[in-house]
């Protein structure tokens, strides 16, 4: 079976990251096959908020990737064959007191030095920007580049474009395991038989740790659950993505129990989405009333009018968390022919196009526009000769 050739590249995962990779690799001239055990956007991509944010990134490599990705989303918005509701609604990071405002301003300064557009708003400007906010807030940082999109529509549009560029979709197919071939490439066994390719891209989100194990490698990706409350549709009441200043702290919080921070935004259909929470509970999808109550309490502190608004439903999803909160993008250090595009946690929608651009450049041996070094999967591999601490 070593001679079997299904495609130049097999992408495992038809979520937003896999779909972006499929399009970028197809447009780079590769013959691409996308394999997914469910369907397009069947996991994490359908269970988030569609965030394309620069505001929540610390000044560092992830922000560089986010800024590049933000530009790529604009390009995709004008060329994908489907409207995916990309909207630069802008982000407002609000502070309750001077101490929070100092921390928000400090982060904003460091982000601005890397090219992020950010403006500080005092209480008066904040009330004009978002009239229904609680009146006692100290101010905000306003990020006009923050955007959102509808991830299921975006995934469908990306896959349609990849299909036009020659990619094949194999849905309902489970990748069970695989091995590197001598020479180059990999052979993988699936529920639809054995597939072979020069390269395999692991874009399986929170399941990418499992996929890596099946392919003879290990990457430290764990599922981290986020839950979201959905309100009844409202007249335009919340104009921006509005979140508490401690959201960034919650993103980088490693506590296994629970990190919560209010994030409130309106969708195009009029419902409000209220997040955000981050829990390490494996793949347990049981709704957690305590978490939902905490989200509601925090959202009420920002928008008191929500006390008169009903929640229609709730959903939760699993984000692919990496130990250092940086995505895992690049060649597997142990298995030749295996590439990873995962570990984005809650930022996968925003970072997907730039991730795919990196993967396409690395797989085809061209120079990527963003330094891939900080995202290399080899950062988790023990140095040669080093003692393994388990």
């Amino acid at each position, binding site marked *: 079976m070593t001679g079997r050739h299904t495609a130049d590249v097999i992408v495992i995962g038809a979520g937003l990251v896999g779909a972006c990779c499929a399009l970028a690799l197809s447009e780079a001239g590769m013959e691409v096959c996308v394999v997914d055990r469910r369907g397009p956007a069947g996991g994490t991509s359908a269970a988030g908020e569609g965030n394309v944010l620069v505001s929540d990134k610390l000044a560092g490599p992830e922000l560089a990737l986010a800024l590049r990705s933000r530009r790529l989303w604009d390009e995709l918005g004008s060329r994908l064959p489907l409207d995916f509701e990309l909207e630069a609604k802008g982000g407002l990071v609000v502070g309750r007191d001077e101490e929070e405002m100092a921390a928000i301003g400090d982060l904003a300064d460091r982000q601005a030095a890397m090219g992020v557009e950010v403006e500080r708003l005092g209480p008066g400007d904040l009330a004009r920007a978002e*009239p*229904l906010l609680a009146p006692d807030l100290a101010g905000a940082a306003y990020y006009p580049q923050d955007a959102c999109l509808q991830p299921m529509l975006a995934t469908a549009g990306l896959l349609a474009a990849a299909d036009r560029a020659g990619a094949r979709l194999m849905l309902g197919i489970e990748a069970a395991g695989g091995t590197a071939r001598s020479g180059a490439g990999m052979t993988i066994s699936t529920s639809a038989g054995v597939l072979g390719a020069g390269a395999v891209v692991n874009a399986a989100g929170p399941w990418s740790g499992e996929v890596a194990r099946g392919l003879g490698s290990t990457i430290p990706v764990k599922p981290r659950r986020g839950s979201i409350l959905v*309100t*009844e*549709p*409202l*007249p*335009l*009441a919340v104009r921006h993505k509005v979140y508490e200043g401690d959201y960034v702290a919650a993103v980088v919080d490693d506590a296994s129990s629970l990190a919560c921070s209010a994030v409130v935004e309106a969708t195009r*259909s*009029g419902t409000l989405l209220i997040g955000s929470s981050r829990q390490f509970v494996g793949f347990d999808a049981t709704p957690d009333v305590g978490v939902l109550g905490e989200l509601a309490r925090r959202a009420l502190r920002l928008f008191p*009018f929500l006390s*008169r*608004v*009903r929640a*229609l439903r709730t959903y939760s999803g699993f984000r692919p968390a990496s130990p250092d909160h940086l995505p895992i993008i690049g060649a597997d250090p142990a298995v030749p022919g295996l590439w990873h595009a995962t570990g984005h946690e809650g930022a996968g929608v925003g970072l997907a196009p730039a991730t795919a651009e990196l993967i396409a450049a690395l797989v085809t041996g061209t120079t990527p526009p963003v330094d891939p070094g900080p995202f290399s999967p080899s950062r988790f591999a023990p140095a040669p000769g080093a003692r393994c601490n388990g």
Partner: protein
Amino acid sequence: MAEGQALRFTFSDRVLVGRAGDTVASALIANGIRSWRRTRRGGRPRGIYCGIGTCFDCLVDIGEEVAVRACLRPLQEGDRVAPSGSVGPAGP
């Protein structure tokens, strides 16, 4: 109030009669009205779907209250029921 006592209410400009113990939805259906709002985007007719307060399909506006679930709300004498704009309350 005795079960079954007549209650007058209006739907849009029509004067209708329901019975004590009716929900707004059951009173509308008893008056032969099976659809009482249109979807916001597609303009498609909606009335009772789940009947137990979960689907939010049966919304009506009643007086100053907006987006009321007709299947849960007991009918009251004098209710002014109108097709809902299907959006909840906002504003100070």
